[in-house]
């Protein structure tokens, strides 16, 4: 069993396998994403409170979910790399970080754009946006530490540890910010909580969430392939690949 894992997780083997998987992820992400957007932007009913501007949630909410999901994946891969010394796991973690940061940034931008029609300002210190901003900082810290340490293995392990520390802190930060926000609540904040959402709004939202996950799957595989090529650039399998070209 252990041998099977070691063989399966060798970068060389991964490189070959991922080439076959990526098109599946990419195409299904595209199809589901387009359908979800269509439903969300054209078919879903107009919100009685916010009119048409609420439709940005079909990008904003899945992006926020993804930023958190990817952080979990990143921390888990880093933990696997740290504990069992599986290099592929380190590569996946390093590859995921910029994607997660981008989703966090997307969530912030879309949240800000949504804020203008909803609250009248481009930025308000609402609990979710603030948590998202802090998550973006956690991503930046991870990426900065990775690039600051020269030795690749130490860099992976150190940033992996940081990711794990971050994961422990995320619930604490989230709770603290929520709490802080309730103290400073304005008059009414219209929150689109899932239970009270109309089914015609929920479906496009979930479709977009699935599409984003598939998109992440495709992109992380591509980026991990690049990581594998770069990190193993002095190894035989990469040199053989280059010679074949």
């Amino acid at each position: 069993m252990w041998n099977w894992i070691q063989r399966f997780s060798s970068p060389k083997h991964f490189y070959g396998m991922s080439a076959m998987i990526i098109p599946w992820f990419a195409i299904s992400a595209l199809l589901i994403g387009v359908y979800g957007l269509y439903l969300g932007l054209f078919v879903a009913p107009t919100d009685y409170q916010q009119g048409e501007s609420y439709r940005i949630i079909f990008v904003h909410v899945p992006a926020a979910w993804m930023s958190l999901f990817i952080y979990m994946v990143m921390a888990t891969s880093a933990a696997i790399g740290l504990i069992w010394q599986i290099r592929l796991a380190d590569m996946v973690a390093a590859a995921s970080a910029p994607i997660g940061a981008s989703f966090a940034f997307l969530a912030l931008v879309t949240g800000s754009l949504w804020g203008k029609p909803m609250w009248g300002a481009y930025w308000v210190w609402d609990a979710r946006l603030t948590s998202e901003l802090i998550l973006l900082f956690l991503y930046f810290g991870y990426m900065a530490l990775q690039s600051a340490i020269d030795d690749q293995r130490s860099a992976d392990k150190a940033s992996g540890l940081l990711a794990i520390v971050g994961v422990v802190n995320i619930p604490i930060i989230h709770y603290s910010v929520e709490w802080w926000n309730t103290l400073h609540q304005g008059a009414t904040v219209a929150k689109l909580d899932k239970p009270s959402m109309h089914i015609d709004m929920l479906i496009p939202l979930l479709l977009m969430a699935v599409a984003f996950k598939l998109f992440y799957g495709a992109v992380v595989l591509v980026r991990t392939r690049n990581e594998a090529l770069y990190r193993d650039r002095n190894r035989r399998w990469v040199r053989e690949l280059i010679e074949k070209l």
Partner: protein
Amino acid sequence: MLNAFYHLLIRDLRLALRNRHELANPLIFFVLVVSLFPLAVTPTAEALQSMAPGVIWVSALLAVLLSLDRLFKQDYDDGSLDQLMLSPNPLMILVFAKVIAHWLLTGLPLVIVAPLLGMFMSLPADAVSVLVYSLLLGTPVLSLIGAIGVSLTVAVNRGGVLLSLIVLPLYIPVLIFGANAVDVAADGLSVKGQLTFLAAMLALAASLAPLATAVALRITASR
């Protein structure tokens, strides 16, 4: 094991006290930064009081951040860190000793000076006592969490800004509850919840941070 812990703590304190002039730096920074705010605004009592909790807490945070470097840098540079890592005693315990020494030298002075700054910022007496309690509970957490950051960046050249980037997001819960405790105390409300949360954070940090720091040191200090 306890002997090694105790002796390391004494050693660090002794080293710092023989360089007494360096100790004052975070303290002076703290007082200086807080003093800047009244100069930057119209220093009416209401204006100062409303911003006091945040200003004092953020300045304390920054003062601790600036002083974190002393935790491992010298030991890393002169090779003592290697000897600590080669001790038969658990590295976690030795790290804990160093962090306690660090707090006694940098955090505790901030707590002691805080009432003075409360006065600068027109805080009422009740709020000042809560300020002291909140800093008393919060600054050790800052030292503990900061130790994780320092151990991750100890081998990075000029890792100061990187350290801030890593550590400040993790400081945010402490900041929120610490500043809020002082804020509501100024209005005469109960602060039990906030202080309890700070105590819980201290317990969590004290149990997990030394372990994380020890692991980080073994990763980064391998040269």
